[in-house]
């Protein structure tokens, strides 16, 4: 097991003008489960491939266990990788697929047989050993690919969107299983996905990338509550965060931001940051659960009257898509609230949770 360190790593592909990965600095702690997440083309897979050794960084150093890896072949890095498409050798039986790496590393036959039996038992794939990958279902192939990676006894696991070819139910099940396996073998893991749900549910820490740049690295809860910028805020969380165009108002009292028909007092550092902007525009973000049905008696929070456009009952709660003037917003309300499309509702904004962003740079202001 080892720590993985990326120091100023960049990758520029010859046929692309902008770098696939741009000056990436990242440390993956020993035994940590790090999820790299981002939209497609953000450079997360390229980063993983640089750790694996399939791509050579244009600049920077990849260190595994303290040793620089730039001139080390993939085969000598002692890593295990699970590929998006599993990459099981189609001409070999499952047993041979599992044995392939150990044979290549010259381990004795008895050890190979014993280890395969162990891992197959753990993953529940004993009955598949005599079959070929083509005869297996997606979930079974996924298990075999995991088994092959486990047998490597690697310094670190690299997983490249391993669940993206599975159906939703199986994906949820494999998420749990992967976490269980990681708890059992706490090996440093870098897990690449474009699915923020996978990132939130599995990660010890999330590294969020966009356009080749690392946007934020933090625990799932921290990144959800304290997004570093508007991109992170909109990428993490489902349904997505609501953004409103706000304007800075100075009228006697403290600085305020107005959005929709609401007004938001700015206190402390937020006020200073907003006042330092060269323009009066502010983006105000509220997550769906931070916009609620206002109590009938009226509260102290700013409210807005909206027309319900869409009702999505999820069971434990209901998602409302509503229209407030020009803007559409999404909020979560208690289940069985009896609302239907066309109803007029009054919503209140939990201003203590408001996230303010500079609309030009996207950076966080409070």
């Amino acid at each position, binding site marked *: 097991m080892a720590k993985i360190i990326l120091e100023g790593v960049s990758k520029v592909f010859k046929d692309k003008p902008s770098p696939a990965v741009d000056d990436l600095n990242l440390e993956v702690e020993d035994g940590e489960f790090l999820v790299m997440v981002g939209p497609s083309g953000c450079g997360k897979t390229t980063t993983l491939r640089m750790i694996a*050794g399939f791509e050579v960084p244009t600049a920077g150093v990849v260190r595994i266990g303290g040793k620089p890896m730039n001139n080390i072949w993939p085969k000598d890095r002692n890593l295990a990788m699970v590929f998006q498409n599993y990459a*099981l*050798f189609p001409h070999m039986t499952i047993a041979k697929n599992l044995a392939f790496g150990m044979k290549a590393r010259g381990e004795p036959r008895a050890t190979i047989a014993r280890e395969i039996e162990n891992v197959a038992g753990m993953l529940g794939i004993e009955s598949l050993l005599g079959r070929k990958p083509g005869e297996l279902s997606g979930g079974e192939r996924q298990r075999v690919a995991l088994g092959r990676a486990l047998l490597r006894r690697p310094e670190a696991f690299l997983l490249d969107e391993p669940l993206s070819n599975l159906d939703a139910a199986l994906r949820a099940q494999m998420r749990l299983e992967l976490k269980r396996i990681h708890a059992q073998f706490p090996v440093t893991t870098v897990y690449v996905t474009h699915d923020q749900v996978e990132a939130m549910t599995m990660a010890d820490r999330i590294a969020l990338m966009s356009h080749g740049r690392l946007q934020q690295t933090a625990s799932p809860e921290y990144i959800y509550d304290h997004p570093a910028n508007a991109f992170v805020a909109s990428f993490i969380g489902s349904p997505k965060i609501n953004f409103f165009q706000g304007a800075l108002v100075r009228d006697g009292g403290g600085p305020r931001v107005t959005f929709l028909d609401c007004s938001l007092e700015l206190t402390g550092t937020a006020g200073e940051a907003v006042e330092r902007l060269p323009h009066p525009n502010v983006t105000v973000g509220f997550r769906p659960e931070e916009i609620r049905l206002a109590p009938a008696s009226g509260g102290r929070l700013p409210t807005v009257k909206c027309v319900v456009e869409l009702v999505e009952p999820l069971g434990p709660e209901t998602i409302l898509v509503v229209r407030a003037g020009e803007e559409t917003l999404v909020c979560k309300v208690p289940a069985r609230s009896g609302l239907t499309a066309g109803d007029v509702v009054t919503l209140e904004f939990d201003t203590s949770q408001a996230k303010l962003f500079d609309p030009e740079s996207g950076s966080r202001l409070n």
Partner: protein
Amino acid sequence: MRSLRPKQEEDRDLAPLADGGLGAGVAQAAQRSPVAISRAQIRRPDRRDRKQRAIANSILVLLGIGFLTPMIWLIDAAFSTHASSALSAPSLTFANFGKTISEGAGGAIGNSLYLGIVSTVIATVVSILAGYALSRHRVPLKAFFLLSVLFLSALPFQLLLIPIYEIYVHLGWLNSPFYTSVALAANSVPFAIWLLKNFIDQVPREFEEAAAIEGAGSVRILWKVVVPLAMPGILVASILTFINAWGAFLLPLVIDTNPADTPAAIGIYSNILADAQIQYGPLAAYAILFSIPVIVLYLVCTRWLHGGFAFAGGVKG
């Protein structure tokens, strides 16, 4: 009632057409208009089809007879005591085979097998290595090299006959079955490289990456992963090389004049020339013996090739 009967029968076979087999009662109602029309529409092109098919089939049969007659003659002559250029009732004797083998066909076929196998092994190994390198590695002037390889494989081999002879004289490689095989392999290598390069291009790289990260070196990756996955292409390349070497005539004739090394292709030719009158029986037997290895090879390999080129289960899409 009786007069209605044929109509009902008609209804019955129309029913499945009309409404997916709901029953004769429904069909009877439907029979009057839409079904009757659709039936006529279905029938007419059918007749035209049959006519076209009949013409096509007769042409094919004629062509087939053209191809088949020499083969029938060959088998007939090989097993006849008094074979001539005409077809005759076969008398089922193996005397022709005995005669042709005793006159050296066995040795010549052995020589051909040697040339075929050795040159196939050389050409296949060389073209796998070259094809893999050209498919996967950055090679300077790759496009130029590949185009010249393709161009060279299209040149008639006879052009090179004299230079090869000169080279072989200098190297002292004349009259050696092994070096004759080398020349035959060289003849096949350009096309085989081209073929295998394209086949290996189709093998997803992920398999090699998976093998590499598992700790396999490049030689193991090549032989355990790439070669099995490119096997259909490798088989095609080796069959073509083998058949080419097996039927080689001019090259062995020029660079190996040792009578003991005579391959079967030349053997048949000298057999024709040997006597004042052509010995059709032994000649036909010789020809059959000559074609057996190619037929066997073909049959064995079609079983393999039927498996096709599938990476199912390894990677998707």
